[in-house]
């Protein structure tokens, strides 16, 4: 399937708006699942988009921009991966396999934007010296445009030259590599989970993770069920903690 210029424009516009949303109102337009689903909708294959977006989202589960660190651009990866797979009729795993390098390549877009925004900071400092509050308001709002273009330009270029890239991929890439990329796509979400285990106090709270695993793996409870059980355990944990707390306080008075 070919991509039309209108489709390219719609997806590029989405990419622009969602980039700004991701740093302001954060209503969830900028995550990989939404990006995949939206692109899938425009390309006429929602299921493909959902699956590509979800896998990339899981990969990036523990990868967040803590303190402004640059991380792979999973949103652009989900958009381009979904679009490329829709254009060629390739499998979901293949789409993930090619979208991951795209995401890594675009890691440094955010770094560039953060450098560009120093310009607006300096402008604001100049306005502050003049007591110009409206100027600072404008400068801060203007800095959102750099985020918009930071995502929209690579997305547009990727989609515009996509058919050539995809043509090259389907003609030149050998079968074994495509099979291999499929397996890569399947094992990459393990990383997202591992990063979370590193970030959270896993060593202290590991029994809860085993519990979640057993409920899902042996008892075949689906993930929403696991989350509800997890919520109950967390609530019990809080009750227990609060009771313990008041008991110690009481004990101190008795002493």
């Amino acid at each position, binding site marked *: 399937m070919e991509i039309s210029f209108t489709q390219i424009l719609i997806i590029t516009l989405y990419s622009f708006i969602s980039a700004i949303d991701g740093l302001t109102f954060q209503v969830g337009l900028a995550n990989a699942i939404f990006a995949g689903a939206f692109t899938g909708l425009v390309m006429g294959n929602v*299921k493909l988009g959902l699956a590509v977006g979800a896998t990339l989202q899981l990969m990036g589960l523990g990868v967040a921009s803590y303190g402004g660190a640059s991380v792979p651009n999973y949103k652009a990866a989900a958009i381009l991966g979904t679009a490329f797979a829709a254009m060629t009729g390739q499998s979901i795993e293949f789409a993930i396999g090619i979208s991951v390098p795209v995401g890594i390549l675009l890691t440094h877009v955010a770094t560039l934007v953060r450098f560009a925004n120093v310009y607006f900071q300096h402008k604001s400092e100049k306005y502050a010296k*003049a007591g110009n509050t409206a100027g600072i308001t404008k400068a*801060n709002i203007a*800095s959102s445009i750099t985020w918009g273009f930071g995502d929209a330009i690579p997305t547009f270029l990727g989609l515009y030259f996509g058919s050539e890239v995809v043509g090259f991929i389907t003609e030149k890439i050998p079968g074994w590599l495509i099979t291999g990329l499929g*397996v890569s796509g399947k094992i990459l979400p393990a990383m997202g989970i591992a990063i979370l285990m590193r970030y959270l106090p896993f060593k202290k709270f590991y029994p809860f993770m085993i519990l979640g695993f057993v*409920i899902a793996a042996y008892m075949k409870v689906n993930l929403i069920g696991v989350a509800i059980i997890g919520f109950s355990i967390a*609530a019990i*944990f809080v009750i227990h*903690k609060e009771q313990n707390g008041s008991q110690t306080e009481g004990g101190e008075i008795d002493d």
Partner: protein
Amino acid sequence: MINEDTSRKVEKKDLNKVFWRQFGLQVGWNYEKMMGMGYCFTMIPIIEKFYKDKEEKKEALDLHLQFFNTNPTMAPYIIGADIAIEEEAGLENKEAINSFKVGLMGPFAGIGDTVFVAIYRSIVFSIAAYLALEGNFFGAIFPVITALLLWGVRYKFLMVGYNQGHKLITGFANQLQILNEAATVLGLTVIGGLIPSILNVKTPLVFTHGEVKMELQPMIDKILPSLIPVSLVLFCYWLLGKKHMNSTKLIVILMIMGIALGALNILK
């Protein structure tokens, strides 16, 4: 201290203006002052109201353009408290305002990035991705609903911060600690369940002993369901503990590993 200067009286509508502006806190994020511009941008309705005198206004703008960086969901608490301090004392003690902001932003970044980024993401996006992988469009909508709940959290933090002023009640820190631990319990339970739910990599290997063919996967399943996914997660966990390892390097390692194991027909 009683505030006799009536021009410095915060009304609900001022706080509402600040609430809308705090969404612009990190949009101007830059390597020099990080959220400095965003903080100043957020405080502008207050600055306009409190400091009618031009020199004072310049001073306030300069003060709030300084370096600032914390978790954006918890930042409204600091902003609210800052407003309360300035409502009482104006710019009398700029160092106190600055050290208050700087003093809180570190611990708040720590708690906020754990609860509202790491754990929030692990729960919300695990469920969303799980639904999406089943082809359920609600997977794309679910994070939008929870994002709106976070709006409520931000609003609450702004109000609580304003009401508590600079008198940081220790009980609040205690509550946050319990919330943090409870959220960790929930988060880890969910990601434990996530492993068998979404990682379905298997081995197609078959051993042949004369006439007898033995598939490896059913044997593995009897030892531990999802043994391969669990091993992969533990392998990544172990690698991430190595020096000089980061997520981008790990992606490259996993990509190469996947291509090799897939091409050799060891995993599928």
